[in-house]
């Protein structure tokens, strides 16, 4: 009985933040000590989706950035991690990879920002994309690292002896077998980019207005209702991914 009550309260506690954010994004006036907003409105949603368009613009910018990054990371990490995993120096490669993986992205950005300024990569989309790649790629390599094992290598070798060229073996054997790992890497690196703020703000100089940057802008302007709205947009794609991908997430761990 107690366990059931605890479980239900846990579920409530997990769902509550979403309801709270949604409520806040629909509120118009909410003065202290009122527990619920005094006035409700769809105006914020209407404004941001149809009229002002800056949140919508941020949404598409974030989607573009995260999808491009996720594709780049998935392809690069796939080939690089495969080479690393079968290399004599796997341990050394992985240790090097773990450094940027563990470091705070924003501190990383602080140290290499100078080069971005010199190369005219500060304050634009490409610059932010490259900077995000520097820390999302190690992330992807770590995800793939566990995937390459002796069994998979034997299967690949067997396909060679059956007459497959390296290219055929990749297309007909390795890629179909790697699908779960590639999907996982894609979603994870999508989320890394989707959630990122510090590095994006620092390299993007506030000009690359992703959704997280917008949330911070709204918080700084004390524009609580729009901040909540942007927050709702931020958590929607991960929730959708979770619904589609939970099994893969569990398997991967």
């Amino acid at each position, binding site marked *: 009985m107690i366990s059931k009550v605890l479980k239900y309260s846990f579920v409530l506690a997990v769902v509550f933040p979403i309801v709270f954010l949604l409520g806040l994004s629909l509120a118009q006036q909410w003065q202290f000590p009122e527990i619920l907003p005094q006035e409700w409105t769809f105006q914020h949603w209407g404004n941001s989706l149809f009229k002002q368009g800056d949140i919508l613009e941020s949404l598409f910018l974030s989607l573009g950035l995260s999808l491009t990054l996720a594709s780049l990371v998935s392809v690069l990490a796939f080939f690089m991690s495969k080479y690393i995993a079968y290399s004599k120096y796997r341990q050394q490669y992985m240790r090097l990879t773990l450094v940027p993986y563990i470091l705070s992205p924003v501190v*990383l950005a602080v140290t290499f920002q100078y080069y971005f300024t010199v190369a005219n990569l500060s304050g634009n989309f490409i610059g932010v994309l490259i900077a995000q790649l520097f820390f999302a790629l190690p992330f992807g390599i770590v995800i793939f690292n566990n995937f390459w094992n002796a069994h998979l290598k034997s299967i690949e070798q067997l396909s060679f002896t059956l007459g497959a060229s390296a290219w055929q073996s990749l297309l007909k054997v390795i890629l179909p077998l790697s699908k779960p790992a590639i999907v996982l890497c894609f979603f994870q690196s999508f989320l890394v980019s989707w959630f990122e703020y510090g590095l994006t703000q620092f390299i993007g100089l506030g000009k690359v207005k992703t959704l997280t940057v917008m949330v911070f802008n709204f918080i700084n302007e004390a524009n609580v209702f729009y901040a909540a709205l942007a927050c709702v947009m931020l958590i929607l794609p991960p929730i959708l991914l979770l619904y589609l991908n939970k099994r893969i997430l569990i398997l991967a761990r």
Partner: protein
Amino acid sequence: MKVYPVLIKLLFGLLIVLPLVAGLSYALSYSLGLSGLLSKGFTLDYWQKALTSQNLWVSFLYSLSIGLVSVVTSLCIAVSMALSWNKSIQQGRLSYFIFLPLCFPATVMAFLVLQWLSPSGWFSRIAFELGFICSLNDFPNVVRDFYGVGIIFCSVLLITPFFTILMSNIYRNENLLELEKLSKTLGASSRKTLRCVTLPILFKKSKMTLLLFVIFVMSSYEVPLILGRQYPQMVSVAIVQKIQKFNLNDIPLGFAMSVLYVLLVILVLVLFGKPSRKYLKPNIK
């Protein structure tokens, strides 16, 4: 020579090693007065200033203690949840809800905590309606407070789901249920089994991940940016603010701090780091 391995090595050098080395050398040279707007040639002044500055050590220690407290608190909650709800975490509807908090980026979670715990926040309103407080000034200051309660609360919310899933997976993979039964047939009480079998195995299998999480919380940026205050400051926030400040003298200090932080992380990796399949990274940066 084959093209493919050379290409991969080139990519690795270009995308993994170069940013790190180039960034670190720039930060180091700036902090040694060799580059930057104020550069006057090699000097150890900034380092001397940095290493003797109370701010820097307070920042590191403050971050470390917030990391430790958050990880230990989350660990306690996660272990209790993983042990009591193990089955429903692995299968069933609860498994979706366990994952749900993972959909919240640090920014959103920090915003939520701000909306809940600030003096005019939701909890304060409830306390007022229930008659616990008479005005918003009576509500205890837990956001942007000296002890970082808000930051810790937010970090705990962010990392507990990871720990719960991790612990629950270890419980399953290490066949702990059977080991617990075995221990009981050997005459151990439930308490003793927990203390001498379950907890030691869980801890042993997760300690590297726990260490990583301490570093992750330590270097978190968005959460302390929203929920922290000017003094004491967490490391990442302190570094960024020093470098963005108009006081040019602070910039080399900021770089010295970032070098120290990077070296600390490398040191931890050299001492403890083994590539392991147990790594999980939270999105709490």
